[in-house]
């Protein structure tokens, strides 16, 4: 395969991993995080430390990176999950920036100068495999009791508390799982780039992830998948526009928001059965249309 296209697919896969986590938190639990790049950084640096300094293989290192991100998210969650809306959002933003500032100063990891020489373990196949696994786990979680509780919290927090859902616990589980996904994504990123620099995990990265989730559609896993693919490729397509590239990107984000605020697939899933249904609907529509044509098209 062409290395350029392969590289973009790997990046889309890495973004997808982080986006799946954020999708659980924002799309299914209704919490808005500006700090996911921070969790990616924790996962990235932790797993790179394990492979470089302790010679671990990739998979256990990734899992450890995810675990590290989850543990730190638990501490953050304990403190901030009771805050609402914008206040939670600003707390996560602060956390993300704080992680970056710490990494800038820690010379053990190279500080702001970055950390080169991380082994190149990430390839298209393990990215696909990990993402498939992540999607299966997420889909099952959402269809379970826990997932339904999370959606209930998103829809009506007060009401779900009254009917006996432990809101704090479910938010916490959602945050930790979400952070661990981001951590694994960070680990994949470290072993794809073979280089880590705190700059890579700036607020811009967190924003990008949120934009992908919203673009794909809140509360839809398949939407997140589509979103990650399209929005990772979009800047590449626009690359020939040079200076005008980000102008177009900004404009595209606004147009998407105002023309279809529910995103590509808001609350809708592309599964084998739903695709079949859609197919049937199109077929019947065509039929009715061709029948209708006889008596003058009224559509």
């Amino acid at each position, binding site marked *: 395969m062409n*290395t350029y296209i392969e590289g973009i697919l790997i990046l889309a896969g890495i973004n997808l991993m982080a986006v799946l986590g954020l999708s659980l938190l924002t799309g299914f639990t209704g919490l808005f995080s500006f700090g996911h790049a921070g969790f990616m950084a924790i996962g990235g640096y932790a797993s790179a430390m394990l492979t470089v300094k302790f010679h671990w293989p990739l998979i256990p290192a990734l899992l450890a990176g995810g675990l590290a991100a989850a543990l730190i998210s638990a501490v953050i969650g304990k403190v901030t999950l009771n805050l609402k809306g914008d206040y939670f959002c600003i707390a996560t933003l602060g956390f993300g920036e704080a992680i970056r500032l710490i990494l*800038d100063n820690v010379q053990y990891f190279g*500080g702001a*100068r970055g950390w080169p020489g991380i082994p190149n373990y990430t390839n298209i196949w393990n990215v696909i495999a990990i993402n498939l696994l992540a999607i299966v786990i997420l889909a099952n979680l959402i269809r379970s009791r826990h997932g339904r509780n999370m959606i209930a919290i998103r829809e009506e927090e007060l009401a779900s508390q009254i009917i006996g859902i432990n809101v704090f616990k479910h938010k916490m589980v959602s945050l930790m799982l979400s952070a661990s996904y981001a951590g694994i994504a960070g680990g994949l990123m470290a072993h794809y780039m073979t280089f880590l620099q705190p700059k890579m995990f700036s607020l811009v990265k967190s924003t990008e992830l949120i934009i992908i989730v919203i673009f794909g559609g809140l509360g839809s896993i398949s939407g997140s998948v589509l979103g990650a693919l399209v929005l990772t490729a979009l800047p590449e*397509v626009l690359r020939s526009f040079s*200076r005008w590239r980000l102008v177009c990107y900004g404009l595209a984000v606004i147009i998407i928001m105002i023309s279809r605020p529910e995103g590509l697939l808001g609350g809708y899933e592309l599964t084998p059965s739903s695709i079949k249904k859609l197919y049937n609907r199109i077929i019947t529509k065509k039929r009715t249309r061709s029948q209708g044509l006889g008596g003058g098209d009224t559509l």
Partner: protein
Amino acid sequence: MKKKAFVLLCVLLVFSLALSGCGQKSTSTGAANDTIKIGWMGSLSGDQAVWGQCEFDTVKMLVEEANAKGGILGKKLEVIGYDTKGDPQEAVNVAKRLTGEDKVVAILGPNASGNAIPIAPVLEAAKVPDIATVATNPKVTVLDGKVKPYNFRVCFIDPYQGAVAAGYAAEVLKAKNAAILYDVGDDYSQGLTQFFEDYFVKSGGTIVAKEGFKSGDVDFRPQLSKIKATNPDVIFMPYFFKEVALSANQARELDINATLLGGDGWPSEQLISMAKDAVEGSYFVNHLDFDDPEVQDFKARYKAKYSKDVELNGYLVHDAFLLLSDSIQRAGEVNSEKIAAAIETANIKGITGKIMIGKDTHNPEGKDAAIIKIVDGKYVFQQKFAAGK
């Protein structure tokens, strides 16, 4: 209606993605025989865009000039440049696109070390050489004692620059106490700070204050007030000219009279226009003497074409281009591996000095730094200075 527009937008995107993939390939096979494609990468957006823009403009100008003279090896040159936003991940994408899609024979740039380091595996896989312009981190070309086969550069490196600044402060300016203000979030600034500190202490001086700020800050008075209390002889400011102008103005406002000292992030017309009085009498380490007769011709050509002054990066990308075209000539054919081998043995005279690539370092060996003093708003060359004796 809006739904339809949205679907249309998506379809358009998918198509343009597919088309851009196909279109690129057809041209690369068709045109490979009579043109030599060289790549450029750097920041055209983001906070480093000033330098990136100047680099890209310079390369375009030089390519035009070379083509007017008949090209290299009888073939026309073509430059393909992309924006990296100063982001490492973008740099890797760009390197993959240049080597995989556009099939360039060599790449010029990027300017930031943080972008030049992660592209090494891409270059090695594609066997395409890259000549970085002002990426001064040692790890750009050498990692864990091993030289990277396809990474080269035309500038001196941080340890050298830091040592020159510290050596000049200690030996020529006779400074005993130095304060450092640096950008915590910037790789260049952290690198220079570390080597300045090491060398200044080794030369018998004391670092009385080491204060940091975060990239994007505009107010440095809290740090400067603290520095003022330690009463240093010199203040080392290893960061870029926007912050230099702001912090120099604020330092003078706070009545700090210490000599200011900086690195190659300083030189710019903007620095003078914004902080003429504040930086008067300051020194900085540079890659070249701007008044050197050798560079006047290039300066004038650039000014005539773009009607603005050339930034520092322009000089270095000029030499990177010179190095590349010389190496293509000596390689005798348009083959990226042979070109890489030719760069390794290059020994040319550029406008920033002699460029003899070291086999084990891929750095230009023995390139002296120029010390520049700012006098009456002009950059006045003081001396060539070599440190580390």
